[in-house]
């Protein structure tokens, strides 16, 4: 369990009909880090996430989780091992209340999720834990609100609470602040920071101020391949990265805070 790297990919490749979206990526995510994956649009970040969680099947290469080869495992099995992802478009169960959303995640540990002959009342013992999770993302007052009625930012928060309920070892976040107003962005940054305590986070994000505030390590992808790696400062000063991704904005970000 105490290996240095939680996740490692070896020569990971994904090809779509003559087009290589992920090209020979060797990535190592250190335990306890918040690791960002950035890169221009179409660099292959989402595809990479999809490979990690088996929503896509890698063409070649290996994926190791805690030094165990998980390349041939199915999505659900990977989730059970402790890798939980969020989606670029928010993923909640819209016609369930916030509490139920979280409870569904908690239920998996109960082992009784196939018990179709039991009353749903048996689920009430999970309520406290679910409630606590909602509280941790500031949604306690919305526990019984049907999720469709929540605003976008709150849906994201709820999604995070659900993700945390799985007690994942590794959290994968795909653009967690996309489409949010500034207030929400700040809140989510705090959330992620909290969530990352004792866990490892791998995230894709275009909002550089978020990246610069949160991340310990950054990998830059371009055209499916790793361009460079390092902390924010090192990466943002790399002229290749500036040209391919940041443009002149890195300076602007620095000024902004």
């Amino acid at each position: 369990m105490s290996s240095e790297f939680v996740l490692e990919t070896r020569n990971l490749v994904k090809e779509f009909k003559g087009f290589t979206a992920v090209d020979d990526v060797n990535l190592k995510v250190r335990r306890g880090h918040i690791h960002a994956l950035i890169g221009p649009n179409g660099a292959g970040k989402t595809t990479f996430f999809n490979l990690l969680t088996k929503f896509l099947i890698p063409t070649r290469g290996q994926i190791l989780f805690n030094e165990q080869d998980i390349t041939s495992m199915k999505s659900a099995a990977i989730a059970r091992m402790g890798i939980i992802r969020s989606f670029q478009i928010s993923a909640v169960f819209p016609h369930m209340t916030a509490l139920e959303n979280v409870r569904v995640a908690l239920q998996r540990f109960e082992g009784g999720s196939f018990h179709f002959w039991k009353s749903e009342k048996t689920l009430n013992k999970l309520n406290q834990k679910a409630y606590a999770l909602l509280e941790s993302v500031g949604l306690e007052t919305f526990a019984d609100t049907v999720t469709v009625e929540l605003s976008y930012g709150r849906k994201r928060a709820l999604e995070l609470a659900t993700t945390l309920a799985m007690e994942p070892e590794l959290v994968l976040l795909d653009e967690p602040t996309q489409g949010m107003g500034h207030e929400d962005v700040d809140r989510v940054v705090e959330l992620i920071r909290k969530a990352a305590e004792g866990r490892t986070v791998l995230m894709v994000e275009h909002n550089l101020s978020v990246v610069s505030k949160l991340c310990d390590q950054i990998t830059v992808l371009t055209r499916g391949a790793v361009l460079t790696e390092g902390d924010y400062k090192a990466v943002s000063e790399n002229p290749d990265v500036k040209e391919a991704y940041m443009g002149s904005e890195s300076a602007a970000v620095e000024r902004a805070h």
Partner: protein
Amino acid sequence: MSDSIKPNYEQLKVTDLHAFYGESHILHGIDLLVRRGELVTLLGRNGAGRSTTLKSIMNMVGSRTGSIMINGRETIDTQAHHIARLGVGYCPEERGIFASLNVEENLLLPPTVRSDGVSLEEIYAMFPNLYERRFSQGTRLSGGEQQMLAMARILRTGANLLLLDEITEGLAPVIVQKLAEVLIKLKEKGLTIILVEQNFRFAAPLADRHYLMEHGQIVEEIHASELNSKQELLNTYLGV
């Protein structure tokens, strides 16, 4: 072209606009005035009703009342598919890329409404990603590429009033900068643009005026020149 030379030509004038989705009343009396060649933004929190304002102009909401004059023509009773023909281009926030068409078909899809649109070559020069993936299925593009496609698509039609909803969403900073340049060029060409943005830093240097929205109403109008003096206000409304 002759109208556009006239100064202060009122390209879009919205008065007392109310909009509804089914039974929920979303917009409560919006007043807007946009002149030819202007770039204005709609700012506000999530759910303030900015997207709904754009959709109402396109007649894409459940129902709407009030007045919407485009080029001096009342359009409150006009059917949706006639509005684009008045020279309006709309880029939706959910991008609306068609899965059944490839990238190039997506680009060529909207009928041209005026003659002086951007040509396909220029578009590909602007967004090389799209050129590279032009025969891919539209929805197979990455999130950001789809965003570029959605934007590029309406430039082709020659529309001279652009309604752009969160176009920088999910784009890499380099592309965002490129988009800013594009918008400046379009403005120079005399196009009128309404921009809905979260990314204030992107919008601020481009816009002539900003409308601040909250709860389906316009609460403040800020000129570019007043930005510094009204920083407080922006903070309270947007948390910038």
